[in-house]
């Protein structure tokens, strides 16, 4: 998926430059609450349960300070991505056991138009595999700067 296409799935009300969370559980909850507050999701408990089950399958902490909690849920109608970061880093049971600073939460419906869910995850992984992108993301403070980075501008 092209980066300009990926950018369409972010929203400024799903962007947090300084997460308050200090644990894995609270980081997942804080990001999920963005979707709930903005009424993208009606039933918080169902989606939280899905995200916990996803962590049962394996930590979505993919290493190098990055986590991409994700999942399809019947309680969502569109694909959206929330972004959050924290300077301190959070123990997320990541595959390299390193604390996580960058979080991308991807929520998708059971069927998504154009089947974009997996390409979105793939595109995020590709972007985040590059150290320069991770370094820039750590310094981002505004949604505008964040979007420029996602688009590769």
């Amino acid at each position, binding site marked *: 998926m092209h980066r300009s296409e990926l950018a369409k799935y972010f929203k400024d009300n799903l962007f947090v430059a300084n997460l308050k969370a200090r644990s894995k559980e609270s980081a997942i909850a804080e990001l999920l609450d963005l979707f709930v507050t903005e009424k993208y999701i009606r039933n918080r408990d169902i989606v939280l349960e899905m995200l916990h089950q996803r962590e049962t*399958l394996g930590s979505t902490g993919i290493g190098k300070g990055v986590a991409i909690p994700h999942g399809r849920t019947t309680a969502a109608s569109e694909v959206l991505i929330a972004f959050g970061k924290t300077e301190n880093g959070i123990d997320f049971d990541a595959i390299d056991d390193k604390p996580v600073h960058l979080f991308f939460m991807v929520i998708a419906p059971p069927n998504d138009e154009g089947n974009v869910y997996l390409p979105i995850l793939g595109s995020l992984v590709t972007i985040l595999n590059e150290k320069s992108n991770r370094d820039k993301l750590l310094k981002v403070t505004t949604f505008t700067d964040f979007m420029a980075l996602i688009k590769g501008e």
Partner: protein
Amino acid sequence: MVKKDLELLVSLQDIDLMAEEVGEMEKLGFSVSGYSELKKAREELAASISKPLLFRYERLRAKLKRAIVPVKNDICLGCFLRQPTSIGVKGREDEEIFTCENCGRMLYWLD
């Protein structure tokens, strides 16, 4: 009671959706080492759902892939047919499990 049943089914389907894409997740580099634990969680959840309802879910899933679909703005997101307003009022109250008159999937109201 019905609300609880529907929510349990939604959670069950969410796990099934996850299990369907385990291979793709692994290819993307995500850990899926807990697959057997996920299957166990699925079994436990399934055991808490009434057998007739679970049977109905499994049968729909075998036939239509997605047994339950979201409804938004009165549109079934399985087949995109508009649902009658009268069904929507009751459906939102979760008093009964409704199915789409067109595609037959169970409906879960999002708004």
